[in-house]
C-alpha cells in the first residue's frame, strides 16, 4: 500500500502496463508534457512511436484509435476533457461501438478512451459535462468511472487489457485526491461494485465523484441512526446489477446520486432497473439526485447549487425516510 493521488495512480498504472506489454500505445494532445500529469514521463520511457502528441484533431484521433486497435495494438486514446469526445464523436459512436458487432466478432477493439469529466471547478459548460449516459446508450462500449486512486489503478489496468472499447472517465475534482493504492499489479474486474458503507435503511448508489459526498452523508446519517447501504458501481457498463438489487431488496429504498444531467442519466437507468426487478421489495419511491438539464454554469455559486453534495444527499435520505405515508408528491 502507498498513498497517492488519483492522477499518480493512473500514471503508475500506464507506466507499469506499457513496460510489460509492447503492444500498448498511447496518444493524444500534449500527452508528452501532460496537462494533468497522468501521462507524464511515458514518452521518455517508451519512445516517441508509442507515446505520441497529436495535433488538435479529435475527429481523426478517435478513428485512428479504431484503426490501430482493429489491427492489433492496445490503444490508449487520451481525449483530455470528456467534452472533447463530442468533437471526435463519430468514430466512437458510429465505429468503435459497432465495428465488432457489425463484423460478427471478427475483431476485438482494445481501446481506452480516457478523459476528465464533471463539474466542480468552474471549468464551465464546455469542460464540465458528465457524459457517461451518452456512452452507455451507444451500446458496445464499456464505461468506467473510478472514485478512488486505488479503483482508478485497478480498473484502468483491466480496461487497458479489455478487448473492447472502454470509456474511462476520471472525475475532474478527484485527480488530486489522495488514497491508499495497493502495491504491485493489482487489477479490478469491470462490473464489480463495492460496498462503501453498510446499512439497512436505504440504498444509495453513487457514481464517480458522487461517492465521496455520499460517503460523508452516510457517516453523518449513521450518527443519526440511519443506516445507509452505499454502493459504488465503479463501472456502468458492465453494471453490477446483482449488488444493487441485493441491497435494494434489503433496504427497500433507493436513491441514485449521479453527476449527469437528469434526463436519461445513469440514475434514470438504475432507477428503472430497480423499478422493474426489485418492485416488490420497494417501500418508497425511487429518487434521483442528479444535475438539472442545463449546461454547467461557471460561477461557483451557480455550479455548487446544481451539483449533488453531502447536504442534498443527507436531505434526500432524511426526506425519504420521514415519509410516513407515501403520499404522492408532484
Amino acid at each position: 500500500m502507498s498513498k497517492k493521488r488519483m492522477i499518480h495512480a493512473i500514471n503508475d498504472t500506464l507506466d507499469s502496463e506499457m513496460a510489460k506489454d509492447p503492444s500498448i500505445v498511447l496518444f493524444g494532445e500534449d500527452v508528452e508534457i501532460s496537462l494533468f500529469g497522468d501521462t507524464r514521463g511515458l514518452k521518455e520511457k517508451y519512445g516517441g512511436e508509442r507515446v505520441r502528441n497529436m495535433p488538435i484533431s479529435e475527429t481523426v484521433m478517435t478513428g485512428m484509435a479504431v484503426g490501430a486497435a482493429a489491427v492489433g495494438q492496445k490503444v490508449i486514446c487520451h481525449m483530455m476533457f470528456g467534452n472533447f469526445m463530442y468533437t471526435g464523436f463519430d468514430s466512437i459512436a458510429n465505429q468503435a461501438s459497432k465495428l465488432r458487432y457489425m463484423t460478427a466478432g471478427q475483431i476485438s477493439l482494445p481501446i481506452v478512451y480516457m478523459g476528465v469529466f464533471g463539474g466542480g471547478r468552474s471549468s464551465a459548460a464546455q469542460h464540465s459535462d458528465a457524459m457517461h449516459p451518452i456512452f452507455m446508450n451507444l451500446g458496445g462500449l464499456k464505461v468506467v468511472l473510478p472514485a478512488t486512486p486505488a479503483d482508478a489503478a485497478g480498473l484502468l489496468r483491466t480496461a487497458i487489457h479489455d478487448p473492447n472499447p472502454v470509456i474511462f472517465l476520471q472525475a475532474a475534482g478527484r485527480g488530486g485526491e489522495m488514497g491508499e493504492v495497493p502495491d504491485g499489479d493489482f487489477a479490478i474486474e469491470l462490473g464489480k461494485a463495492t460496498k462503501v458503507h453498510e446499512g439497512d435503511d436505504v440504498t444509495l448508489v453513487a457514481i464517480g465523484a458522487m461517492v465521496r459526498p455520499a460517503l460523508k452523508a452516510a457517516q453523518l446519517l449513521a450518527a443519526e441512526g440511519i443506516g445507509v447501504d452505499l454502493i459504488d458501481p465503479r463501472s456502468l457498463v458492465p453494471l453490477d446489477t446483482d449488488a444493487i438489487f441485493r441491497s435494494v431488496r434489503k433496504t427497500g429504498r433507493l436513491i441514485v446520486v449521479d453527476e449527469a444531467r437528469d434526463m436519461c442519466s445513469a440514475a434514470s437507468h438504475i432507477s428503472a432497473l430497480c423499478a422493474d426487478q426489485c418492485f416488490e421489495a420497494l417501500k418508497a419511491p425511487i429518487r434521483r439526485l442528479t444535475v438539472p438539464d442545463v449546461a454547467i454554469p461557471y460561477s461557483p455559486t451557480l455550479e455548487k447549487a446544481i451539483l449533488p453534495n453531502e447536504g442534498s444527499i443527507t436531505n434526500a435520505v432524511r426526506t425519504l425516510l420521514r415519509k410516513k405515508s407515501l403520499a404522492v408528491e408532484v
Partner: protein
Amino acid sequence: MTVLCEDTNFSSERLLGLYRDMLRIRRVEERLAKDSRAGNLPGPVHLYIGQEAVAVGVCANLTDDDWITSTHRGHGHFLAKGGAADLLMAEVYGRETGICRGHGGSMHVADFSKGIIGANGIVGAGISIATGAAWAAQLEKKGAVSIAFFGDGAANQGVLAEALNVATLWKLPVIFVCENNGFSEFSPSNTVTAGNIVDRAKPYGTAHESVDGNDIVAVAQTASRAIRRARNGDGPTLIEARTYRLHGHVEGEQTFLGAEYRLEQEVSDWRDRDPIPALASRMIDAGQAAREDFEHIEAEITEEVARAVKFAEDSPFPDPDAQTANFMFA
C-alpha cells in the same frame, strides 16, 4: 505491334489477372443490381460498376498483410482485396453464411483475414481508420501499408485534412485514394467541391498524384509508386483517381428521385470509357491477348458468380435466438 505497357511488371498474364478481377466485381454487382430490382435484397446497395479499375489497380500491389478501408460503395474493394464472392453475396443477401454472418450487410462487408477492415456507412470514416492502421503498421515495422478508399464527396469531410496533416507529420504508410466519380451522392462535384482534390495534399507537403481511374495500368503504376514510398518510410500519398459510376448512387434511385441529375450523354460517354472492355481492346490491339482469353475468363466468372449466388440462396437467414448480443463484447 507494341506491348501495352513498357513496364515489365505488366505481363500478359498479370494483365489478364487484373481483367479477371475487374470482371468479377462487374458480374457480381450486375447480379446484385438485378436482385435489387427484383426486391431480393433486404437493404440498399451502392454499386461500384464503372470504377473497377481503381480498386483492382490499387489492390494489385497489396498482400493480405496490408490493410484497406472502404466506403458505402465497398463491394469492389472487398473483392479486389481478395474477399470471396460467395461470402460477399451471402452477406448482402443477409444470410448466416455471409462474411459478417448477416450482421453487417452491403455497407459493412469486412474480412480481417484478408486485410479488409471493411466498407463503411459513414462517408469519410475509413480515412481515420486507415490512418490508425498505418500507425500500427509503422509500429510493427513489417513494411505493411494501409489504403483508404473514399469518394470525392468524402474529400469534403474535414477528417481528410486532419489525416493528411498527421500522416505527413508522422510519415505514416498510408495512401489516401480518392475516387472522384464526379458526384457526391446526387450533387455534381463542382457544386460541392472547390478546387482540385489532389491539390489538398499540397499545403501539408504530402506526396500526391492524379490519375485516370479508368486506366487500370495507370492506376496500378501510380499506386505502386505511392506504396513503395510508404513501405520505404517516406510517408503518405494522396491519389486522385478520376472515374465514373455507371449506375446510380444507390440502386433503385429512379423510383424515388423526383428528377434526373445527370445527362444521358455523360453516362454514355463514360460507358465508352468502361475500364473493362478498354483493357481487353488494348491487350488485343497490342497482341498481348486474344478474344478467346477474355471469353474464357467470362465463362469462369459466370460460373463463380452462379456458385456464389447459389451459396447465398441456399444459406439460411441467421437465427436470432442464437445471435442476439453474441458479438456485443469480446
